[in-house]
């Protein structure tokens, strides 16, 4: 899942990003409102985690503009946790609202819940080709056997399972699973799919569609 984190507190942003990456999200960071809008112009983020008190462009304005575009789900994050503020935030177009300070597990759960709302409704646990992937517990099982995956491998598998049989191009996977620091000409996707196939074992479930990308037969 591709996440944009908009937070002006430097160390806090670092920790949230690190934590989300551990959970298989590709996270970009913007330190102010304008940068956030610029980044969201270029990349169709699944979820934007938005702090409300932002320099340059206020979080409310960012929220309204992002909601108008409608490409990303918005999770508002703010220190002013009064009821009016929450109502204001949701009225501006945020999909969910979390007051600071929060338990990190709750943030992850909410990011996932909000992210599920992109596109058609999807189940909390993904299944396909004999593989069971539980995003909340971050576990993957194949035929009852636990498979240990890196965050990137997990992200790729999650995306292919969500596609439910449709083909996903290497560019899309790079966009959704890797953050902005990924080299667009890299063969990281090919290598990750390779190790993923090896870890999932026989019979192979990830098919290569020549010239188009990858798919998993549901």
């Amino acid at each position, binding site marked *: 899942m591709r996440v944009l984190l908009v937070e002006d*507190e430097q160390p*806090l942003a670092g920790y949230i990003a690190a*934590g989300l990456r551990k959970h298989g999200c590709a996270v970009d960071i913007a330190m102010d409102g304008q940068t956030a809008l610029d980044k969201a112009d270029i990349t169709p983020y699944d979820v934007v985690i938005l702090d409300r008190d932002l320099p340059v462009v206020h979080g409310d304005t960012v929220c309204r503009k992002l909601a108008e575009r409608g490409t990303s789900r918005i999770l508002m994050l703010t220190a002013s946790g009064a009821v009016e503020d929450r109502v204001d935030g949701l009225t501006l177009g945020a999909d969910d609202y979390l007051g600071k*300070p929060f338990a990190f597990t709750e943030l992850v759960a909410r990011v996932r819940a909000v992210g599920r709302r992109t596109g058609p409704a999807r189940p909390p646990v993904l299944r396909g080709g004999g593989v069971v992937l539980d995003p909340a517990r971050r576990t993957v099982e194949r035929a009852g056997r636990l498979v240990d995956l890196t965050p990137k491998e997990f992200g790729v598998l999650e995306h292919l399972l969500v596609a439910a049989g449709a083909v996903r191009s290497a560019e899309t996977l790079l966009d959704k699973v890797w953050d902005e620091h990924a080299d667009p000409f890299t063969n990281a996707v090919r290598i990750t799919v390779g190790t993923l196939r090896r870890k999932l074992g026989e019979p192979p479930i990830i098919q290569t569609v020549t010239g188009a990308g990858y798919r998993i037969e549901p």
Partner: protein
Amino acid sequence: MRVSLSARSRLALLYTALVLGTGAALAGLTYLLVRRSLDRRPVMLADFRSPEAATPSPLNRTEALDTIERLRADTLTQLSTQSLIALAVVTTLAAALGWLIAGRILRPIRAISATAQRLSAENLSERVPVTTPADELANLAQTVNGMLDRIQTGVADRDRLLRSQRMFVANAAHELRTPLTTVRTAIDVTLDGRPSTSELLTMARDIRTAVDHSQRTLDGLLTLARSQTGPSRSHGVDLADLAGEIAASATQRAAAQQVELATTLLPAPIVGDPTLLDRMIANLVDNAIRYNQPGGHVTITTDVADGRTMLHIANTGRPVDPDEADRLFEPFVRGPAGVRGDGVGLGLSIVHAIASAHDGDISCLARPGGGLDISIRFTKPLPGHAGEQT
């Protein structure tokens, strides 16, 4: 059981009772007077009753006396009956008139009470109509209007105070929650999995920074609260002495930032709390150095001008909007990101609170070339004058 009557009924009743009483007295008096005059008057009686008699024939004495007695009794009975009827008519008329008049007199009061009932805390703009003759009721209306004016101002003041207080609480909560969030997230994220020693050390360092920041914010809030309550002990102080000491201790910090510190310290006596005043000057000097630029300067001046003690601190620095210069004294307002440093945004609020507690007016001007020009003028009597008074 007490029957509660409206003021209008009571007025009408009183009026009617008065008329009834006076009428009854009048009728009684008339009755007595008539009876007395009838007693005294000699009566000559002749019988006109027999139509056949061409000339009235005098009656015999007993018959005449009887007739006289009967006539007198008839007259008195008639008088009293008619008096009672008249009294009843007059009283009824008085009651009706009294009711109408009482209503008319009380109309302005009803208008006042109706207006007062319509008014609420949200709408205090309506006023009682003032009647044209400048009588007691017009006076009452004016008094009520004056009271409403005062209530309206009071409510507006209270609302403003409440708003600023709510704003302050929200800001304070925000300032305290942000480092708390950093601490919580740092711990949650780092301990999720198996952290390496270097990860743990980084986390500990970040937590310490956040805790330091919280502590500075709390200290600032406490100082601010203390400054707002005003001086706990007051005696004569010379701002020149305080400023001199602060400048001396700040020289090194200024030099480290390549900022030149210049002072013109003329005697500037004031009655106040030396600890608070020291904190006020220290915060101003600290800001002047912190938000300066290499090669810049800070000038501190103390003086007495027009009988008012004054302190003036000017510094070079980045350009400041005039709007921003006005807002700098509000709590938690800092310079834009990148220049705010490690301040918690309470320094100038504390300055403002201390200056206000000492009856000082602050003026803050953005200098055309960048930086700020802050002067504080105190209106408190100088120590010499205070000494004479006590």
